[in-house]
C-alpha cells in the first residue's frame, strides 16, 4: 500500500511540475526574449543580420552584469524560431512563443511584412515588442500600443536624395520645378512606402515624376524601364527593391550605359554593391538607417566604430544597419526594464513609451504610435568605391558629387588612372 501511494504521489508531483514549468520559460534570474526571425527563405541574409545583432547585444549586456530590475540583476536570453520568411509562419510562431514558451517579451522579426504579420498577435496578448526591422509607415497607423520601433519609417530612405536634387538645382540656377525624377520601385509594402516619401517631397518642390514603375517581385531585367529612362532623360533615377533592386540597378544601368545625373538606391551595404561592382557603383546615392561614422555613444558598446569592431570580431563581417538596429532594440528593452523596476508587462510597456535614451545607433524616443522620432536617416554616396556620408550635414564626411560624370567620361578617367 505504502509504495503504491508514494508512486501515485510522485506521479502527481511530476505532473504538477510539468504543468507549472512548460517550455523554455524564465528561470528566476533570466529574462527570456522571444524572436521569430527569417533564418531560411528569401530574407535569410537579413534574418541572420538581425539574429547576430540581437545575440551580440545580449552577450555584451550579460557580460556587463545583465539588467538590474528592482534590486535584482537578471541575465537576458533570446529564444529563436525560424519564420521561413513567410508571414503566416511568423504569426504562428509568435503565438507559440507567447502561449507555450511563455517568453517574457518579444523582439521583432526582419522586414515590414513579417512585423505586420506578428504585431496583431503581440497586441492581442498585450505583449511589449521592440523591433528594429519593420519600417513601413502603415505599421504605425493601426493604433498599436505594445509595438515600438527604433528605426526611421521607410518613407525617409530617399527623401534626402530629393532634397539634394533641389539644392543642386538651386545652386545651378535652375528652378526645382524643372527637375524630372524617374522611379522604379518594387511592388511591396516597404518599397512602396519609400516611393511615397519620394513623391511627397518631389511634390513639395514641384518636381515632375516622369516614370513611376512598380517592379514585380520576380523581375530580373529592367531593360524596359531603363529604355524609358534613356528616352526621357530624367535628372534622377531612384530604384528600390531590397538587395535585388540594388544589385540589378547598378548592374543594368552600367551595362546599358544609361546616364542619369543621380542614381539613388536603398540596401546598398547589405547588397555589398561596392565589393560586387567596384567602379561601376561609383556616384550612387544610398539611403541608410545608420553609418559607422556616426558618433552617438552608449555605455554598452561605446560608439558606432567600437560596435562595428566588436561585431566584426564576433561574426566576421561588417555590420550592416540591419544588425545595428537589432542590437539597439535589445538595448531599448534593457533600458526600459531598468526604469520599470518590474517584469510586469504593462509597467514595461509604459516605461518603453517613456524611453528617451541615446544608443550607438542613434537617439531613441517614441511617439504615441511607437515609432522613433529622435533619429534621422543618413544618405551616403559611393565615391571612389567607398561610402561617404553626404547628408544630413551634421554627419557629412564629404560633399555630394552631382551631376555624376557621363559614362564616356568615366571610362576615359579610368583609362587615365590605369596608365
Amino acid at each position, binding site marked *: 500500500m505504502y509504495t503504491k501511494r508514494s508512486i501515485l504521489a510522485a506521479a502527481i508531483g511530476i505532473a504538477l511540475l510539468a504543468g507549472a514549468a512548460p517550455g523554455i520559460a524564465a528561470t528566476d534570474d533570466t529574462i527570456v526574449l522571444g524572436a521569430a526571425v527569417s533564418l*531560411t*527563405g*528569401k*530574407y*535569410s*541574409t537579413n534574418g*541572420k543580420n538581425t539574429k547576430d545583432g540581437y545575440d551580440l547585444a545580449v552577450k555584451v549586456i550579460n557580460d556587463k552584469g545583465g539588467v538590474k530590475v528592482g534590486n535584482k540583476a537578471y541575465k537576458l536570453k533570446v529564444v529563436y524560431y525560424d519564420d521561413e520568411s513567410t508571414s503566416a509562419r511568423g504569426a504562428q510562431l509568435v503565438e507559440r512563443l507567447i502561449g507555450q514558451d511563455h517568453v517574457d517579451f518579444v523582439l521583432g522579426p526582419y522586414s515590414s511584412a513579417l512585423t505586420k504579420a506578428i504585431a496583431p498577435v503581440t497586441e492581442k496578448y498585450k505583449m511589449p515588442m521592440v523591433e528594429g526591422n519593420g519600417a513601413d509607415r502603415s505599421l504605425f497607423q493601426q493604433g498599436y500600443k505594445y509595438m515600438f520601433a527604433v528605426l526611421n519609417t521607410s518613407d525617409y530612405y530617399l527623401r534626402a536624395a530629393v532634397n539634394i536634387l533641389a539644392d543642386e538645382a538651386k545652386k545651378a540656377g535652375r528652378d526645382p520645378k524643372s527637375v524630372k525624377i524617374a522611379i*522604379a520601385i518594387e*511592388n511591396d509594402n516597404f518599397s512602396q512606402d519609400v516611393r511615397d516619401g519620394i513623391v511627397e517631397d518631389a511634390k513639395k518642390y514641384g518636381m515632375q515624376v516622369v516614370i*513611376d*514603375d*512598380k*517592379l*514585380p517581385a*520576380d*523581375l*530580373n*531585367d*529592367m*531593360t*524596359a*524601364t531603363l*529604355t*524609358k529612362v*534613356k*528616352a*526621357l532623360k530624367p535628372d534622377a533615377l531612384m530604384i528600390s527593391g531590397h*538587395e*535585388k533592386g540594388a*544589385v*540589378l540597378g547598378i*548592374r543594368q544601368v552600367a*551595362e*546599358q*550605359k*544609361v*546616364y542619369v545625373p543621380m542614381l539613388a538606391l536603398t540596401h546598398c551595404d547589405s*547588397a*555589398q554593391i561596392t565589393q*560586387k*561592382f567596384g567602379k561601376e557603383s561609383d556616384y550612387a546615392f544610398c539611403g541608410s538607417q545608420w553609418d559607422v561614422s556616426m558618433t552617438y555613444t552608449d555605455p554598452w558598446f561605446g560608439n558606432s566604430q567600437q560596435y562595428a569592431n566588436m561585431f566584426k570580431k564576433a561574426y566576421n563581417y561588417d555590420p550592416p544597419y540591419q544588425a545595428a538596429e537589432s542590437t539597439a532594440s535589445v538595448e531599448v528593452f534593457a533600458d526600459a526594464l531598468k526604469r520599470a523596476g518590474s517584469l510586469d508587462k504593462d509597467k514595461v510597456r509604459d516605461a518603453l513609451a517613456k524611453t528617451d535614451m541615446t544608443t550607438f545607433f542613434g537617439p531613441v524616443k517614441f511617439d504615441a504610435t511607437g515609432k522613433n522620432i529622435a533619429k534621422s536617416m543618413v544618405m551616403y554616396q559611393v565615391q571612389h568605391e567607398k561610402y561617404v556620408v553626404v547628408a544630413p550635414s551634421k554627419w557629412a564626411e564629404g560633399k555630394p558629387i552631382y551631376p555624376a560624370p557621363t*559614362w564616356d567620361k568615366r571610362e576615359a578617367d579610368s583609362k587615365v588612372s590605369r596608365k
Partner: protein
Amino acid sequence: MSNLSVLIDAPILLVQLVASGILVGAIFALVAYGMALVWGVMNIINIAQGEFVMLGGYIVFYLAGAGVQPLFGIPIAAAAMFVFGFAVYRAVICRIVGRDMFVSILATFGISILLQQLANQLFSADIRTLPSGLPTFSFDNGLVTIAGIKIVGFVAALVVGVALFVFLRYTRIGRAIRATAQNARAARVLGVDTDRVYATTFALNGAICGAAGGLVAMTWFIQPYLGLTYTLRSFMIVIAAGLGNLPGVIVAGSALGVLEEAAGFVLGAEYQTAFVFLLLIVLLIGRNALLARQRKYLR
C-alpha cells in the same frame, strides 16, 4: 499612353526593345528546350527546372571565384549538371516515369523545395552576380545598347538548339529517344533500352539548365529562390510553342521576350509579367478553338 507617344517619336527605342527582348527570350528558350525534351519524351513536367538553372549558376559563380573565366565555366557547369541530372533520375525520376502526371509534378516540386533550401544553407540567400567581362555595344548615341553577354546567351541558345536537333535526328541514341517518345512500349519491344533513354534525356536536360544557369549568373543575378520564375517561364514557352515543337521553342521564347519588353515599356513594369500571362491565356483559347475545328473535320 504617353509612353506610346515616346515610342512613336523615337522609333529607335523600338529597336532596343526588340533586340533586348529577343536576346533575353533566348536564355529563357534555352531552359524551355530542356523542359520540352523531358516533357515530350518522359511525359514529366519538371517543376525543379528553375532550381537546376540556379545550381548551374552557382557552379559557374564558384568556379569564377576559383579563377576560371566565367565563359569557360559554362561547359563545366553543363557537364556537372549532366551528372547531377543523371543522379536525380536514378534517385527519384526513374520511379515516377510512366505514372500519372500529377505524381511527377508532386515529386519534382518536392525536389525543387529541397534544392532551394539546400542552396540556401550552402550558399546563403545573398544575391550573387558575375561580371561577364564582355563589352557593351552602343549604337545611335547610346540610345540602343546591347550587352555582350546577352549576345553570347543568344548564340549559345541557338547552338544548343541546333545541336539538339542534329543529335535527335542523326545519332543512334537520338533516334532511340524519338522512338521512345512516340511509343515507349513499341520501342522496348524493338530492343530500345528505354530506361537508359530516359536517364540520358533527363541528364541532357540537366546539362542544358546548367549552361543556362551560367548565362543567367552573368546576365542578371542568382539567388536560391529564383527557380520558380524560370520554371514558369519555360512552361509558358513550351505551351506557346506547342508540345514536341523543338525549333518552335526559340521562336516562342524570343517572341514572348519582345512582347514582354514592349508591354513593360508601354504599360509600366508592373504589367510586364501580367501581360505575358494574359497573352498565354488568349493563345490557349485560340489554339483550342482551332483544334476543335480540326476535330470536327475528323469526325
